[in-house]
C-alpha cells in the first residue's frame, strides 16, 4: 500500500512537472513571437477560469460524454468480437476479409452519410467515434488472442475448463494489456475525430467552442478551449492507466 501511494505521488509530480515545462515553453514562444494569435499562458488560464462557469464547462462535459460513451460502446462490441475472431477460426475466416476491406478506409469519409441518417445531434458524433475506435480494438484484441499459446489453453482445459471458461480465464486476461494499449492509442484518434466532428454543424462541444472563439478572433478563449481539450485527453489517459494498474498488475512487476 505504501509503495502504491509513493508511486501515485511520483506520478502526480511527473504530471505537474510536465505541465510546468509546457507552460514555460509556451510563455517563451508567446514572448518571442509577440503575435496576438498566440496569447500568453496567463491570459489563456484567466480566460479558462472566467469562461468555465459560463459555458466552457458545459462544452467540456458534452465532449467528455461523447468520447467516453463512444469508447465504451466500441469496447463493448469490439472486445467480445475480437476475442471470438481470434479464437474461432471458422468465424474469423468469414469475418476477417470484411474487416480487412473496411479497416483501412478512413471512416471520416462516411460523415456525410452518417449526418444524413443520424442527424446533426449527438448520435452522429458518437457513432463516428465508436466506428473508428471499434476497429482498432477489434483488430488488436484479435491479434492478441492469436498470440496466446495453445499450451495455455490446454492447461485450462486440463483443469476441466469449458469453452466459455477459456474465454473468461485465458483469452480475456491474456489480451487485456493489449486492449488497454489500443485504448490509449484510440483516445488520441477519438479526440481528433471529436474535434473534427464538432467543428461544424453543431453548437456544443469543445470543437465548436474552439472554432467559434477563433472566428470571433478571441485567441485567449480559443486557447482556453485547447487547455480543456488537453485536460480531457490527460483525464482519459489517467483513467486507462488506472484500470491498467488494477487489471494488469502482473504485467508491471518488473518495473518497480
Amino acid at each position: 500500500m505504501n509503495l502504491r501511494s509513493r508511486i501515485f505521488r511520483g506520478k502526480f509530480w511527473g504530471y505537474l512537472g510536465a505541465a510546468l515545462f509546457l507552460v514555460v515553453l509556451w510563455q517563451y514562444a508567446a514572448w518571442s513571437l509577440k503575435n496576438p494569435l498566440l496569447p500568453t499562458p496567463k491570459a489563456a488560464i484567466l480566460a479558462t477560469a472566467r469562461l468555465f462557469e459560463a459555458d466552457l464547462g458545459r462544452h467540456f462535459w458534452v465532449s467528455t460524454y461523447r468520447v467516453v460513451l463512444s469508447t465504451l460502446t466500441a469496447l463493448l462490441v469490439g472486445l467480445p468480437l475480437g476475442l471470438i475472431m481470434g479464437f474461432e477460426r471458422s468465424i474469423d475466416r468469414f469475418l476477417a476479409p470484411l474487416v480487412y476491406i473496411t479497416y483501412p478506409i478512413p471512416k471520416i469519409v462516411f460523415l456525410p452519410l452518417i449526418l444524413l441518417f443520424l442527424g446533426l445531434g449527438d448520435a452522429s458524433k458518437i457513432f463516428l467515434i465508436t466506428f473508428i475506435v471499434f476497429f482498432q480494438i477489434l483488430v488488436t484484441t484479435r491479434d492478441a488472442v492469436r498470440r496466446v499459446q495453445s499450451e495455455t489453453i490446454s492447461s485450462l482445459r486440463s483443469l476441466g475448463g469449458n469453452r466459455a471458461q477459456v474465454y473468461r480465464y485465458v483469452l480475456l486476461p491474456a489480451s487485456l494489456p493489449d486492449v488497454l494499449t489500443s485504448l490509449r492509442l484510440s483516445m488520441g484518434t477519438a479526440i481528433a475525430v471529436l474535434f473534427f466532428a464538432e467543428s461544424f454543424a453543431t453548437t456544443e462541444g469543445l470543437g465548436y467552442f474552439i472554432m467559434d472563439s477563433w472566428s470571433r478572433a478571441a485567441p485567449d478563449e480559443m486557447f482556453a478551449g485547447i487547455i480543456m481539450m488537453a485536460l480531457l485527453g490527460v483525464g482519459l489517459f489517467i483513467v486507462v492507466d488506472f484500470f491498467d494498474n488494477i487489471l494488469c498488475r502482473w504485467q508491471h512487476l518488473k518495473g518497480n
Partner: protein
Amino acid sequence: MIEVSHCDLSYNQAKSQVKVYDNFNLKIEQGESLVLIGPSGCGKSTLLYLLSGLMPPTGGEIQIWGEPVKGTRQKTAFILQEYGLFPWLNVEQNVSLGLRVRHMTKGKYQLLVEDMIQKMGLGEVKHNFPSQLSGGQRQRVALARALTLQPDLLLMDEPLSALDALTRERLQTLLLEIWQEQKLTTVLVTHSIEEAVFLGSRILVLLDGRPTQVVGEILNPLVGQRGYRQTEEFFQKTSYVRSLLERGGLDESAK
C-alpha cells in the same frame, strides 16, 4: 487399469503428415508410477496429451478404469511442460483455479486451497504472481493446483527440468512422498536418467522414430526405498537405461 489400445496419432505439418504413434499399446496398473524417457521429439508429450483427453487419437481407443476417454476427465490432473501457470493469477488464484472452474464456491475451496498452499510451503508467496517466483516454487504451485483436484491420475510433463540440482532432488522426494501417500497413478516425463530411476516404478524408454518405438521397459520394484539413490541396484538401473538410450541414438545415426 489404463489401457491404450491400437492408438494412432498423426500431426499435420507444413508439407507432410507426421505419424507419431501407429498401433501403439500400453497398459498402466493402478498405483503405478510410470516414467517416460526418450530423446526430444520422440512423442512423450504427445502421449500425455492422449492420456489427458486433450487430444483424441486418430485411431484406436484409450480406457481409464474401464471407461473410454472422451475429452478431459474430472479426475485426471495434467501438469504441462512449462506453460502450466497463468501469469495473470497469483499463487492462491492459480491453485484454486481448477476448483473454481468446477464451480466450487469460495466458501468450499478456501480451506482446501489454504491447506495445500501450506503443505507445499507456499504460504509466504501466496500473493505473488508466477513471474515473482523461483522455478522450484512455480513447480510447487503447479503441483498444488493439480493435487487440489484430488486426481486419481496425475500426468506430469518434465515438471522438474530447469531447476538447480538441490531443489530438484528436494522436489523429487516430494513427488515420491505424494505418490506413496496417496497411491496415485502417475505418468511422468523426464530427460534425466537418475530422476527416471528414482521416481519410476516402471520406466519406458522411447525411441525417436516415425512412428515412436518402445525400446525398453524396466521394472523398478525398489523405487521409493529409503536411501535408494545410494544403492548398487540404483546404479545398475541407471546404467541400463543409459545403455538403452544410447543404443537408440546409435540406431538413429546408422539409418
